[in-house]
């Protein structure tokens, strides 16, 4: 990979770190866990002790073609059956059921004039955008429990760190966080290590796993999110953005 190709490259460059070693070191650690971020912060000589909250862009994402969706919801059951061993659409990390009857805007959009099965028949499959920095769910997490999945760099919930506070649910403008009520933990799309079950299960090819692109600016949000950033984290913004050292 040529220098300057990735967000990380640019950051490293920007921080003016001794590049090769640091870059490899960062990547090595980072691939294991996003706890690597404070490490990078510490590596930046003279920087603040606040963690860096930036996450590298994901490698891929699931895109949905609403004209091909036939509403069988096999994506939802595949998501939880082949990951958790149980059928539970409320836990699915792709979301069709909530749009099935009346579409993303609900009944306020009218019935025959709205979307969904009771409207114009368009069924919208909501998928995680694997947002670029600043990643709303990860930034909001007070416990830095939303980390990179090593293979795809999908943002995933580290179940050991998650305490079930639901701040990530409040933060996602697309309402893509799910919550496993029985475990008391949050969950989200982690791209099934590069072979998304929903895509495999789609009966009409309406879902595709493709190279990442930024959909966070292209797909309408479901609601105005509640941006939450803990003080010690927002202090970390200063690693790149503050009027301090950089």
């Amino acid at each position: 990979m040529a220098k300057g190709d990735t967000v990380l490259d640019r950051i490293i460059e920007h921080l003016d770190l001794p590049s090769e070693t640091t870059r490899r070191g960062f990547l090595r650690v980072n691939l294991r866990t996003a706890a690597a971020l404070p490490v990078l912060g510490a590596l930046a000589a003279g920087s603040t002790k606040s963690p860096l909250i930036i996450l590298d862009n994901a490698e891929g994402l699931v895109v949905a073609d609403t004209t091909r969706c036939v509403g069988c919801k096999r994506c939802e059951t595949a998501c939880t059956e082949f990951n958790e061993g149980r059928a539970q659409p409320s836990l699915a990390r792709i979301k069709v059921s909530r749009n099935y009857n009346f579409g993303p805007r609900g009944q306020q959009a009218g019935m025959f004039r709205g979307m969904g099965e009771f409207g114009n028949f368009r069924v919208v499959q909501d998928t995680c955008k694997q947002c670029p920095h600043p990643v709303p769910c990860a930034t909001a997490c007070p416990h830095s429990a939303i980390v990179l999945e090593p293979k795809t760099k999908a943002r995933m919930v580290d179940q050991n760190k998650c305490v079930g506070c639901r701040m990530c649910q409040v933060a996602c403008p697309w309402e893509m966080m799910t919550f496993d009520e029985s475990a008391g933990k949050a969950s989200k799309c982690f791209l099934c290590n590069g072979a998304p079950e929903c895509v495999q299960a789609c009966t009409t090819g309406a879902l595709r796993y493709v190279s990442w692109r930024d959909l966070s600016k292209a797909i309408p949000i479901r609601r105005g999110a509640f941006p939450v950033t803990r003080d010690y984290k927002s202090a970390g913004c200063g690693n790149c953005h503050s009027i301090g050292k950089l």
Partner: protein
Amino acid sequence: MPTYGGWTGKTLRVNLSSGKISTEDTIAKYKDYLGGKGVGYRVLWDEVPAGTKGFDEANKIIMGVGPLTGTSAPSSGRTSITTIFPTSYPWELVAAGHMGGHWGAELKYAGWDNVIIEGKSEKPVYIAIVDSKVEIRDASHLWGNGIYRATASICQEMGPETQVAAIGQAGENLVRLSVVNNAYSHSAGGVGAVFGSKKLKAVAVRGTGAVRIAADKQEWKKLTRYALSIMGANNNNVVPSTRQPWAEYFAPMSRWTARKGLYWGAADPPVETGECLPEDLNRIGMRTMKATYDMGPLAEKYTVRMGGCSSCPIRCHSHVEVPQMEEKYGLSRYAASTCTRLTAGTSGFIESYPEGRNGLAAVEANIVAEHMLDDYGIWDNYHQLSRDFNYICRSGLAKSRLSADEYKSIPWEKREKGDPSFLQDIYRRIAFREGELGSVLGEGSGLMAKLWNFPEAYFNDMRVDLWKMGHPRHHANEEVGQTGVLVNMNYNANIMCHSHRNFITCGLPTNVLQTLGEKLWGPGAVDAPRNYTPMNEAKARFAVWSLLRDELHDSLTLCNWMYPLASSPLKSRNYEGDNAIESKLYSLVTGDKKDVAELDLVAERIFNLHRALTVRDMNTSDMRSKHDTIPDYVFDDPQVGFGGGPEGRRTPPSGPPPKPFTPGTARMDRADMEVGKDMYYETLGWDKKTGSPTRATLEKLGLKDVADKLAQMRLLPA
């Protein structure tokens, strides 16, 4: 007690008389009956007194799903609604209406396997289920509204993800031919008015819980993909309808209609159905383009997409957008359904349309019919309703039985012209029981024939196509010879059994079917179409298999319009399906390992319980001559087998009527069919003389209590 996957373990009981809501243990009480119809029959046997009528307070409604419902087991989204049927005549007897859609899966996610509804409310109510929280809520604001409005209102109260099974005005007004409907276009026939009699507008469900899979998740995934790999298109048609480079065979009547150049024309932008290779599981949902199959080529440009039930890879519900519906008829431009809804407009109410059966007026008529039936909640009874209307028109009975004023109030000129708005007038009369015509049509064929004193000719009229007891012929001798006749004898409402039909009409040539059939039922089970041979034991086994699998599907639940998967689209398997697929799915989901024979035995238990209920409620063990009757036209009508509805009827060949067992006819022979009954009863271990279950058979199936009760009532054969 062992814990099983699949079942949630809880059955809900709601008493509308007392308002009591209680919970029962599914496993302890009902596991031997799986779910769906099986549990329904058991509850009716245990709790509903013999001779109870459909609208009696003592009648109960069992809305049952099964261990597979809500999982990725393909086509498992169905619900059985079992009750004493008000359309069955002259005895009101046990039967079940079945619906697909999304209600059944939602019920499982809410944590329930069955809902038993008993008693009668004094004022309109609906049952609201949100996970473990269940309420009986006031429905006075919903009463009088159609299903669309009722569903929307309940979703406002319970949230947009709620699945609502509701009745329309027809059910409220105790129109016997009425439905319960969910998910816009999925309805269970014959049970709407039973809801209405209990002042129950709807059962609405929202579930956020889980259905546990007992097996290892990778093993389960492998099995679901295997099941998908051996499925065909709708009705398990396993070859395409047009010649395709990849296909060894094709069959014009196949529902595998996707092809290059055929589009969902009203999708935005249009989507090509295209080539759907059997191995491509990510195109399996494109195989069945049903809109053009049901309504002809004109429907292509109106098709938005296909749709259907939860978990089903086969999308048999056409979703169309016909803009002029608003201006011309005041109806929504968006309509969805499958046969028979989207063919109801061309099934007899109006005899012909200006541009024929596939012309614009005919397409619009089907859309009008769909909206009327699905919103008012009228049951078309497999087009029996329209064929009966057609009969009273052409026989002159409409004119002679109706008052001059009422007759004049009917817009006959619209019927003559082929104007679809005629249907709006007629369906309104039925839903609101307007006048003599509206009242009598909605009673169903049996009671209607009695009330209007129909001549004997009605019952033997092939164009009427009635089988018996108010229900129509449904895939009988015209398609599957004696096996079809035997299958048609058994139920007390529209038989809704497709096991035999799915196999015979899957599109494979006769010699391939014969090879597959011989493995399953022995040599001679399968004849060439309309070139039948005399009865043999293999055909009896084929009939028993068809019925037992139907019971199994409506209890697990799986869709009997797809299963059993006796054939597959795979040349590499010599087109063999997998006769054990149901037991494989059941074993992995529940963890209760049963092979195909063991699960078929459960189906046999369920089927025997159905038979015992019929014996009990008819108060005779003589099923053979009192219940298992066969209409004369099966033996006598020279045209038998040449199609049903007025326009679909083909002209019979000229010359003298062909004899049974000669090429080209579906005519059956009386003596041969008596041999058929002998063999069929024997296969089931039933008494040959009466066609009733024997003590030995009932005890073998773990139904000793049923045998004891029948013996006590003197209804057990000697």
